[in-house]
């Protein structure tokens, strides 16, 4: 991530195609694609192309919101469809960016793995000629013989977890007497972590891509007291990867014995959900014993590799409709869709009739209802005073047209609204109450209310691999960001006379020239070892480099007594 100078175009930015040959062109394109600048550009591009999918509701994540958006923006709809704005994350243009980025990533890390493997085997580079030109540099003299100094330096550096290489000092300035030098390097873990991070990212992307081929997600709306068998025909919606096979579905059957919703009844947080819990009877395979289980939000039911989740809940008023002759033409619980926080819910009852005009009822269900100045209104999401408000339509429901209809909406095109005393018919019913429909069309009874819940059955294949990749990426990230790759050199030589440098002064350059051109002022007071240490950080020069060199000097001085 940070050691990026190995990306090729940083060394030699290829600004134009060098030739027209297909091979050269391909090579040029490859160099461009794997260069840091293009990778940066692709990163930004990926961020930008991800934005539309957060603005336009996505079909897979939120199909209701998507169709709602489509209805509100009819003018944009053709373009939204053409550009795939409802499925941004599987469009060619989004995939193109992320595939290019992935190729760029792989193209970058492959050569770096090779380079790093080589770097791990080879020794640290020999001391450069001019150590005083390094970002960190110290020099001093010692009475200790050179070998002893180098021994102490080697020991100190190894203790600091440097990899150390000692050898003849081939690159020393010609004027200086040839001595021995020591090269050391530390922080290989930085690049190891860096590579691990990037490889792990590829692993995550592959796991997500391959997993989506095998994964599936089905939703099914279940009214309290009923159940479903785990097969695609029972689902209200199913999204599955291309490699999904119906035979992959575990053959369980599940009945929702009860689904309870409770809400905070009073206080400042009144009305917020307190608990949603479904108690279910599970049969893993046909004929298997029935198990009693609970499903809560955040606590799904796991069945043989699939998870069963609670999604959105709602109320289902139980309604009975009788025709003009008093015969029951409909009875049952009708799931209503909540419209707000207090579960004001809407729904319809469709009663096709063979020998009379079809009946359609539009209802608003209020768990704690009042009929105020603004019409029917719910005050609380709990069932304190359930009220069902209905109006009625007569005519042709259009169910025979073969067009798929929403079960939550009434298509009133072929119907006329029932009218009573010149006003549209409307009745507000409490449980147990009935109302006569106008014109002898029949009656409607509000028997009571039950609950429904949307259950989601899903399997996300490859999630374990994706998680492992993501965690490895974090593990790789830490040394990448916090380990410092540092090189240190130590050079010793024996001065034939007393050098000018006493103590630690940054004046090695002066010293060498002095040693080369100096006059013999005094007879030598014995051999003196001139020691130079220098340091270089490979990526980011750290402000602790000077401190580390000072510590090194102290350690050497201590080690040489």
């Amino acid at each position, binding site marked *: 991530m*940070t050691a990026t100078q190995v990306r090729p175009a940083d060394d030699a930015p290829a600004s134009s195609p060098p030739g027209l040959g297909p091979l050269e062109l391909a090579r040029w394109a490859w160099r461009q694609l794997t260069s840091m600048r293009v990778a940066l550009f692709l*990163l930004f591009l990926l961020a930008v192309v991800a934005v539309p999918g*957060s603005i336009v509701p996505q079909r897979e994540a939120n199909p209701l919101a998507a169709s709602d958006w489509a209805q509100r923006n009819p003018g944009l709809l053709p373009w939204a469809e053409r550009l795939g704005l409802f499925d941004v994350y599987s469009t060619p243009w989004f995939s193109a960016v992320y595939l290019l980025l992935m190729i760029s990533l792989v193209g970058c890390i492959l050569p770096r793995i090779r380079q790093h493997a080589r770097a791990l085997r080879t020794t640290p580079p020999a001391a450069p000629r001019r150590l005083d030109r390094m970002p960190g540099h110290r020099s001093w003299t010692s009475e200790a013989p050179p070998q002893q100094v180098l021994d102490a330096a080697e020991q100190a550096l190894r203790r600091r977890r440097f990899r150390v290489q000692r050898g003849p000092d081939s690159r020393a300035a010609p004027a200086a007497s040839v001595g021995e030098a020591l090269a050391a390097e530390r922080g290989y873990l930085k690049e190891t972590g860096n590579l691990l991070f990037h490889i792990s990212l590829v692993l995550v992307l592959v796991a997500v891509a391959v997993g989506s081929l095998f994964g599936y997600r089905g939703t099914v709306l279940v009214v309290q007291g009923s159940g479903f068998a785990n097969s695609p025909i029972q689902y209200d919606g199913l999204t599955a990867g291309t490699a999904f096979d119906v035979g992959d579905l575990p053959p369980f059957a599940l009945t929702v014995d009860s689904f309870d919703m409770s809400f905070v009844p009073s206080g*400042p947080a009144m009305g917020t959900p307190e608990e949603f819990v479904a108690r279910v009877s599970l049969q893993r395979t046909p004929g298997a014993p029935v198990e009693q289980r609970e499903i809560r939000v*955040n606590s799904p039911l796991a069945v043989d590799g699939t998870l069963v989740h609670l999604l959105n809940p709602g109320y289902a008023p139980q309604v009975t409709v009788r025709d003009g002759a008093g015969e029951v033409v409909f009875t049952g619980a009708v799931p209503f869709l909540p419209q707000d926080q207090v579960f004001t819910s809407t729904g319809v009852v469709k009663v096709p009739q063979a020998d009379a005009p079809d009946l359609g009822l539009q209802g608003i269900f209020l768990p704690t209802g009042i009929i105020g100045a603004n019409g029917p209104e719910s005050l609380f999401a709990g069932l304190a005073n359930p009220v069902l408000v209905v109006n009625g339509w007569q005519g042709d429901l259009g169910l025979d047209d073969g067009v798929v209809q929403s079960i939550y909406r009434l298509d009133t095109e072929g119907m006329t609204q029932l009218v009573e005393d010149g006003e549209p018919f409307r009745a507000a019913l409490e449980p147990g109450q009935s109302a006569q429909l106008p014109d002898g069309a029949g009656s409607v009874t509000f028997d009571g209310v039950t609950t429904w819940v949307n259950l989601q059955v899903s399997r996300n294949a490859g999630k374990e691999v994706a998680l492992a990749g993501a965690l490895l990426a974090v593990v790789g990230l830490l040394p990448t960001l916090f380990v410092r790759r540092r090189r240190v050199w130590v050079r010793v030589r024996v001065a034939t006379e007393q050098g000018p440098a006493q103590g630690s002064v940054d004046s090695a350059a002066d010293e060498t020239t002095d040693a080369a051109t100096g006059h013999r002022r005094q007879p030598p007071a014995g051999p003196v070892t001139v020691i130079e240490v220098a340091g270089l950080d490979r990526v980011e020069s750290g402000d602790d480099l000077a401190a580390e060199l000072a510590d090194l000097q102290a350690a050497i001085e201590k080690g040489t007594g």
Partner: protein
Amino acid sequence: MTTDTAAYLSNVLVDAAMIVWAVALAAMAADAAFAPVRATREPVAVGAGGTGTGAPTGAAEGTGPADADGDEATPATTRWWGVGRGTFVLGTVLLGVAVVLRGLAAERVPWANMYEFAITGSFLVAVAFVLLSRRYDLRALALWVTGLLLLTLGLAVTVLYVPAGPLVPALRSPWLVIHVAAATLAAALFTIAMVASALYLVRDVADRRGAGGRFVSRLPSAAALDRLAYRVTAFGFPVWTFAVIAGAIWAEYAWGRYWGWDPKETWSLITWIVYAAYLHARTTVGWRGRRAAIVSLVAYSTLLFNFFGVNIAFVGLHSYGGV
């Protein structure tokens, strides 16, 4: 102490922290206004930063030991600075108590809605700032950080406030503690990095023009600001990565898929990508310094949008908590 008392005291203490921080802000402003402009400061700043007119900021790397943060010329201060620092720490303590009381009042971790996120996040920013101040000379940043924190708290108590209450079932999970705590910590760190990057740009422009007023001359060198922004971001990035991963794990438990392109998920990925771009940019020739700082600001703006814009503008699974 009943939960109602705790909730009430928490609200009072948030107000108190705001008042104390307002005093801190005034004192810091007074310090900035009355502190003498020291003559020694200019040459040191130029020499340390290596960013004299025309010199690109890339030269910041490798300027050697003289560039160590501790060696920055410390701007002269007045006794107002002492007042500002003291009241800032006091306000931080008050806010810390307010956050703890809020948690006690709601009988859960105090980061389950935007109000709580704002007060807890502000507290973390303040703590991170106090801690970083021990290592770096951040006096020039203090005024701006304090102002930003006051603005956030003001927004929290006016727009975002919701009474303390139990968690909705969707949030009742141990992952709330892990996921949101990591996200809040990362956001706090990114906030400090953003202030450093913004001041870097101010300092950089002033250095290029070879001029700078009283305010600019009090700033740390461009190189030091750049390095501070990088280090804090480098610390925040793995934390943010972890927050996204923890969110994915939670999503698998809560919604049955670990990644579903919910607007919040999408924007946290966008934030992650842009911060990754910042870390890359900082080591890329031609992108160091000014451009990297701009990328850092862009990244922070995506973060802000993720926390506020996504909840308000889009409908998604993360829409809860009152706003």
